[in-house]
């Protein structure tokens, strides 16, 4: 008798948890929608802000503009990444309780790597942006970031939403194109140009994700 009651309570509690997990699918699509927009703006800033700064400013003003131009978007992008990390691991903990799927604990390592890479980038750019040094730091960072984003998305969704696929494919396309641009042309402008598809696609992914997120809520509710 008592066991039956406990089993019923367990079933009811898990059903509520499962409903919450399904609602999170919608909320995560929205969160990632904002995230893509923030990173699209940050990547655009990293790659193209040197051109107007160098053209219009000189001396101390140039250094200050570099520092502000890279630090502010870096802080915003890192804050957004950190928020996604925390949220993902809270979701994984709930999922573990409901389904028994154990979350992997490498959150601190990933966060530390992002901070180290971004810190190095800010230093390089604020010192005047030597192209070769910045490429040596940037390309490994982008490869690491591409892997990290893939892992995060795969852990969050069983089937990646269209906007996530667009974001991932465009990002890896830009990584390969930028490496080829450095090898073939050895000119900064072409390297920057290789990242334009990512900026455009991530902006599109952002709008698409925010617009279509409520559909996933309707699908889940209909099940």
């Amino acid at each position, binding site marked *: 008798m008592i066991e039956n009651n406990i089993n019923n*309570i367990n079933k009811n509690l*898990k059903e509520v948890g499962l409903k*919450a997990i399904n609602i999170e*699918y919608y*909320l995560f699509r929205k969160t990632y929608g904002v995230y893509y927009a923030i990173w699209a703006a940050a990547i655009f800033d990293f790659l193209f802000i040197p051109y107007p700064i160098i053209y219009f400013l000189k001396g101390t003003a140039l250094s200050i503009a570099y520092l502000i131009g890279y630090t502010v978007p870096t802080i915003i992008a890192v804050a957004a990444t950190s928020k996604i990390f925390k*949220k993902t691991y809270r979701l994984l903990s709930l999922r573990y309780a409901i389904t028994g799927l154990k979350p992997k604990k490498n959150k601190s390592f990933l966060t530390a790597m992002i901070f180290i890479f971004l810190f190095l980038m800010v230093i390089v750019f604020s010192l005047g942006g030597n192209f070769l040094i910045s490429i040596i730091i940037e390309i490994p960072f982008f490869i690491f970031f591409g892997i990290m984003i893939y892992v995060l998305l795969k852990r969050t969704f069983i089937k990646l939403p269209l906007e996530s696929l667009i974001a991932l494919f465009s990002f890896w396309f830009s990584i390969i194109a930028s490496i080829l641009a450095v090898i073939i042309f050895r000119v900064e402008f072409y390297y920057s140009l290789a990242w334009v598809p990512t900026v455009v696609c991530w902006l599109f992914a952002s709008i698409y994700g925010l617009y279509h997120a409520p559909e996933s809520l309707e699908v889940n509710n209909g099940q």
Partner: protein
Amino acid sequence: MDNDTNKLIENLSIIASDPALKSSSRLLILIILYINKKMSFTDLLHSTMMGKGSLSNHIDKMKEEGLITTKNVFRLSGPGIMIEITGKGENIYQNYIDIINKLSSNGSEKIIKKSDDKSPFKL
């Protein structure tokens, strides 16, 4: 009954006797708020697909119990209400997770089958 079972029943009675959590809707709101930490009333309304009045009532009850706090905020989309989970709310959530873990380890059947592909989330 062993100590574990006694503790389990004690924990269950805490949840069952908590007026704020007698309803599964309030438990759902609490779980969503734990994962997101804070959310606007509008976002919560869209997520839970509850009626405006119903959600308001649940929010009021949870606020009375000290599980959440609310504050008026101004955003780009206009003024709104921001709802945030409190420490007490987080404790209740942890209690909920502990109970599920305990019940599962006690052999209670899992309602989620790994082969269930209907959920968009990995199960």
